[in-house]
């Protein structure tokens, strides 16, 4: 019996040692790389939120990188919660080399935790040459460039069914007032004007951000995003009041407020592009096109089109954006190869690979517009690049997740309450400030 136990113990020890060895093995530091075909035999691990067709298309970019440098790549899909997954991977000693970070706030959080490797002078040169300054700033923390914005989203697009608008006899509006007037005309024709996805709080934050950016201007937008400006500021109340004129108008919102609160984002697209349209227009980012195309067989540019989010109160038309930034982790075993990958992602060449596959916008102005697969994507990409330094990153993505990114609480919940009852913008602003103060402090 004694004998057997000791064998067991030895076996266990051996097993543990073996596991430890695999966990820690292969982590030899490497000499500087980055040249052509110089990365043979290396494997770069990339983590990101993408799955499905986005992952497939990104894989094409990675394959192009492999063809160029010889480094193998491995993509790990993290699901929605990048920061938790990456955090636990770092603690577990299994850090990916490159992470595609979907939020400014998360990038900042990583940088402050000391997890990120500065991208260095070469990448910085490329970024200076190809990107508007604002993208560099969103990728930097305290003046050091950590993140390269490879993929961007255009969140200032209002999508419509051209037939519904033609039926009502309205043209794409250029100002908020025109949009409401057009909405009333659409409503006269029998369709409701807008499908609003109130069940998904993030669509409401996007509505607010567009109105606010155009009405209050980029400086106030930045200040509010950093919580240097309080949410009780009159400009916030004014933007909420403006938004309230839309929210409280039963003619403008499919199903009224109650119906909107019971509609999720895919549902709102269905209400415009589905088999039984209830509304003429739906506001959300360029990804609406993807849903309309994949699920409702719309041909983008023919029976689904967009107009830019209109200007509010004489301000410039807003361009709110989002995006995924590539960052390199200090703890990655193939850090050098990871840096080489980010360097590659900064080139127009890499962006053009995905642009051809569709569902992708690049903030890089050197990307050839001809590379995009269809006219509408080309138009969104042009609009994004043309906006230059006036582009602003989605405010709720810049905020701490507790405020700007959590179902059922913070900004999402408060704006949903506002949609339910838009009568008191001041009280809503006060509630927002209270929630923001708590989240930004923590």
């Amino acid at each position, binding site marked *: 019996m004694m004998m057997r136990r000791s064998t067991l113990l030895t076996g266990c020890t051996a097993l543990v040692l073996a596991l430890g060895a695999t966990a820690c093995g292969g982590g030899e530091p490497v000499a500087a790389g980055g040249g052509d075909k110089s990365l043979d035999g290396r494997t770069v691990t990339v983590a990101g939120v993408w799955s499905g067709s986005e992952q497939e298309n990104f894989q094409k970019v990675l394959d192009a990188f492999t063809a160029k440098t010889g480094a193998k790549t491995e993509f790990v899909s993290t699901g929605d919660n990048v920061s*938790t997954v990456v955090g636990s991977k770092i603690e577990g000693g299994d850090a990916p080399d490159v992470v595609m970070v979907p939020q400014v706030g998360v990038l900042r959080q990583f940088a402050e935790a000391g997890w990120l490797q500065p991208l260095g002078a070469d990448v910085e040169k490329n970024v200076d040459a190809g990107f508007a300054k604002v993208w560099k700033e969103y990728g930097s923390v305290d003046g050091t460039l950590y993140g390269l914005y490879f993929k961007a989203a255009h969140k200032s697009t209002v999508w419509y069914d051209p037939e519904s608008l*033609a*039926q*009502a*006899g*309205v043209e794409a509006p250029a100002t908020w007032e025109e949009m409401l007037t057009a909405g009333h*005309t659409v*409503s*006269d*024709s*029998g*369709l409701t004007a807008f499908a609003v996805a*109130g*069940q*998904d*709080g993030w669509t409401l934050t996007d509505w607010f951000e567009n109105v606010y950016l155009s009405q209050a201007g980029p400086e106030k937008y930045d200040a509010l995003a950093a919580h240097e400006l309080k949410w009780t500021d009159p400009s916030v109340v004014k933007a909420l009041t403006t938004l309230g004129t839309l929210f409280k108008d039963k*003619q403008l919102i499919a199903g009224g407020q*109650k119906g909107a*609160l*019971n509609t999720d984002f895919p549902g709102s697209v269905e209400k415009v592009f589905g088999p039984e349209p209830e509304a003429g227009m739906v506001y959300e980012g360029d990804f609406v096109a993807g849903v309309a195309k994949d699920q409702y067989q719309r041909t983008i540019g023919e029976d689904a089109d967009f107009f830019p989010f209109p200007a509010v109160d004489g301000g410039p038309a807003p361009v709110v954006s989002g995006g995924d930034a590539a960052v390199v982790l200090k703890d990655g075993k193939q850090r050098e190869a990871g840096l080489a990958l980010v360097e590659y992602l900064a080139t127009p060449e890499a962006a053009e690979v995905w642009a051809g596959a569709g569902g992708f916008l690049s903030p890089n102005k050197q990307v050839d517009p001809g590379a995009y697969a269809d006219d509408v994507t080309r138009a969104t990409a042009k609009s994004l690049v043309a906006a230059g330094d006036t582009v602003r990153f989605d405010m709720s993505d810049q905020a701490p*997740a*507790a405020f700007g*990114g*959590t*179902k*059922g*609480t*913070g900004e*999402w*919940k408060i704006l*949903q*309450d506002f949609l*339910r009852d838009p009568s008191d913008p001041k009280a809503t602003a006060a509630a927002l400030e209270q929630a923001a103060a708590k*989240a930004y402090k*923590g």
Partner: protein
Amino acid sequence: MTDTLVKDARPPAPPRPGTAPGGRSRRRGRAVALLFVLPALLLLGALVVYPVLFSVGRSFFDASGTRFIGVDNYTEMVRDPATLKAIRNTVVWVVVAPVLLTGLGLILAVLVEKVRWATAFKTLLFLPMAVSFLAAGIIFRLAYDEDPDKGVLNAAAVAVHDAFAGTSPYPTARARDGQGLTHAGDGSYRTARTVSPGDTVTLPFVGVLPKDLPAGTKRAGAAAARGAAPGELRGVAYLDFAPGGKGAPGQVDAEERGLPGMTVRAVQDGRTAATATTAPDGSFAFTGLAPGRYTLTLPAANFAPPYDGISWLGPALVTPAIIGAYLWIWTGFAMVLIGAGLATLPRDALEAARMDGANEWQIFRRITVPLLAPVLTVVFVTLVINVLKVFDLVYIIAPGPVQEDATVLATQMWLVSFGGGNDQGMGSALGVLLLLLVVPAMVFNVRRFRRSQR
């Protein structure tokens, strides 16, 4: 928890040390006992005691876990409206769900005893226990959906409502603003000016999709152009919107069509003098009206929006709705446990009561329930413990906008710790509160268990 019920099954007596009560052998016996208990103790220590102590400690630190903040998390807890809501909802759950479940279980158990297909019936009621909470949550999320096309409960509610109240022909229609029709508070429309026999009136409406018009609808132009005969009050209700937005508001243009089937009333001094229904071209006519001034009204029944059921998952009803789903899952469990208790009841007491002429209600009230009291208490306490930790159903069934209205302590603990706030200090404090709430029920159950073993 099943162990508590099976009172006769005593565990084997603890091994007695040998007959020689020497100090040495006793010590040795103790060492051996310790050796046997050690693995269990280690596991319990690592998986229960250590996490509990860690959580208690963690609850005195802030979100980052580096700064000691004393009882701040606890004071914040009773100030934060979301947490207060969670506490309130948890109280509602604990008060309502176990009582309902024990009551339902008791009634069903007693009734099931008397039916022929008892086993089949019991199996059927117990089946939901086999469904995971996640799946049950998704099922009920769908069943409670507000859209009658998706949610079965609202589909039923709408079907019943429409069978009694009927539907309106033009739920989306509304009068063209500023074109002679005013909206009354009750959803009806009336002409802004009074009219008299000999007049022709046009009643412009918008907001109806051409495809929603009834079949056989005709253009309204000709009817509008026709003059009224002497003594006749004529008019046309029409859709004042031509495709492409062409046509002038308030005028019957060539392409515009009538709205058939609308009810129009001629009202004088608050009394309805005559009622007409519009023809396929939208025209209507009142003949034989006494001379005088009339107001034409279009009752709200023409425009009533379709009844869209009950907001099961609105802020007011969401907690009762989720408790309903919980009942669906657990009723079978309560019934089977109570049924098992029922089977062990001494038949002679029941027989004796029957002989003495007690009726079934008296037997139930005076004999069955008191004899079952121990089982009922166990079921009740077990359910209280279960209800305190309810999480999955609440998390899955409550849609985003009402999540905070439905939240209970367990969901709140998770949301605060991992659902975005990442404040694990506060989360630990909530966990400790939950622990404190469960402890009395646990102590009670353990005591009962001990007593029943003795």
